[in-house]
């Protein structure tokens, strides 16, 4: 890894920020599509941390984990979009606060 040498801490900081943004988005947004997107952001933050750590230690594990996360994200989006369709069908809206039938 010649030339572009970014310290690990910076990358981890970015990953943390991404994670926080995703989490805030998840908590704040009401639209279920945006919530799914926020979830993707959080997954990517974790993936970034893995990659950066893998590069730092010079090991392939980080990249393998990234591949794993990528496939998990793909599966999650597949299931998530199916759910989105169902929510839209049942509640005629994408607002998650409308889907509160389990209220105690």
């Amino acid at each position: 890894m010649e030339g572009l040498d970014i310290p690990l801490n910076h990358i981890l900081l970015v990953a943390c920020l991404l994670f926080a943004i995703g989490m805030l988005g998840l908590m704040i947004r009401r639209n279920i599509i945006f919530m799914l997107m926020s979830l993707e952001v959080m997954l990517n933050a974790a993936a970034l941390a893995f990659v950066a750590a893998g590069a730092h230690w010079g090991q392939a594990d980080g990249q393998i984990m990234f591949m794993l996360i990528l496939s998990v994200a793909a599966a999650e989006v597949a299931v998530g979009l199916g759910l989105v369709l169902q929510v839209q069908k049942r509640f005629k809206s994408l607002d998650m606060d409308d889907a509160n039938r389990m209220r105690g």
Partner: protein
Amino acid sequence: MTELLWLIPLLPLLSAIVLMVLPQLSVKALPQSLIAVIGVGSVGSAMLLTLTLALSGGPYPIEQTLWTWMAVGGFTPGVAFYIDGLTLVMMSIITGVGFLIHVFSSEFMLGDHSYARYFAFLNLFVSAMLILVMADNLLLLFLGWEGVGVCSYFLVGFWYQQPDNGRAARKAFIVTRIGDTAMALGLLLLFSELGTLNIQGLGVAAAGQWQAGDTMPLIACLLLLGGAVGKSAQLPLQTWLPDAMAGPTPVSALIHAATMVTAGVYLIARTHELFLLAPTAMMVVALIGLATSLMAACSALVQHDIKRILAYSTISQIGYMFLALGVGAWASGIFHLMTHAFFKALLFLGSGAIIHCLHHEHNIFKMGGLRSRLPVVFWSFIFGSAALAALPLTSGFFSKDQILVQVFLHPQGGAWLWFGALVGALLTAIYSFRLVFVVFFGVANTEVDKKPGWAMAVPLSLLCMLAAVGGLFAIPVDNVFPAVSEHHPSIWVEVVSAAVPLLGLSIAYLLFLGKQWSLQPLLRRPLSQRLRYFWLNHWGLDALYDLILVRPYYSLANALSSEPIDRLYGAIVWVNQQLHGLLSRTQGGRVRSYIASMVLGLLLLIALSLYGGGEM
């Protein structure tokens, strides 16, 4: 004859059952004549059987065991009868006077909607009363005892549509129940101490186990006395009897004058062997009797309801019987019980006839002048009142004279008791002739709208005869009770005893018939007005019990009706509900808030693991 003994209580019982069941089965109303034939006929047959038994002449006692009621360990009370002279006297009174009252009732109650119910209860009563007197053990006696109590309740509240009658019935039942509880305790005590409840066995066992004057017989006798006091309306439980007059008048004659209220006297006479071992209890019996008889006589002086006068006079006369029992004059007490049954039933039936013929008028001051218009009733009252006042040669004279003599001869304070009894006799004569003079003489205040028919007149005439000559009957109780001393007091005691009723009669004549004396100036004084009010309400006993028993009980019931103890459990429920509300609020169904709480929790855990310093 002896084999048919069991038929005597069974016949009225069967008739009661028939009269209860038959009206329910038949489609249209039974003819009243049929009901009367069944109801009166059953008691009539019982009377004939009793007479046959009495005329067969013994040998007494007759014992008959029908079956063993129950067998628990060594306790085997039987449904068994024991007939001796005392029982025979009681049975004759119950069936004889009872039969006459049934005949009277058949006309008195004619036209009542519940004719069959009336005779059913009346027959049931006769049956229970017969069981009471024929029982050979105290447990069977107690069955009859409670049976007559419940019949009294049914019949006092017979016209239950009026709430006051229901209240009187409940009062009669509850007040006697206080005494009955004492009696039940007495039975338990006797059984646990002596191991039997058979009456003859009790006498033998008690004589073998206890000495005269021991504590144990005293307690047992006082408990039995409690039962007797409740049933016989003696101090301090006499308040129920005047109110029990709410029932039909023949019921008052049968239950509240002739038979049931004398059950207490019978009980004490029956268990006299126990009482002889407790001289203190006997003194208590005598004092209760004397006090009650004086109190009730004073109250009878000022009443204006004809039935209440008779009710107080009944209390007073039973007081005399208790006095006789207390001084050990058992036979005289029972003799007075018999003559009292005759003349008091006569007086009650007479008052029933007046009430029947006078539009249900009870107030004696609204009657007046009935002498020529209801001659049969007039003569009934003359004979009845003469016997009640114990005028010489009437039945009441013979019995009361015996009592007075025996009281005088009592070694402990006999003269004082005798003097008290004389005052009672004087008052008795005054109030009984006040009743006669006010009701039958003077001017007529209410029109007579019907005349008594033969079914009323015949029992009245027969009872007149009994009240007149009943004092000549010899009751066969010589073998039952220990002999009393044949010693006679000096002649002046007898003379005074005989003269006092005549004195009372003259006073009543001067006050209420002749115009020589007038009560008006006396009555205007505040003190005598207050005294009159005091006596009218029977010495304020009702108010006293109301104050110390009834009202505290009501307020306690009121306090408990809001269930203070349940409040504690209510509070536990309330706290749980509030917690549940709080927790269920967290289950808002909103995904975002779940996420937020997860994040918060996560942050908290991380913070703990970083800064808590402890092992996670």
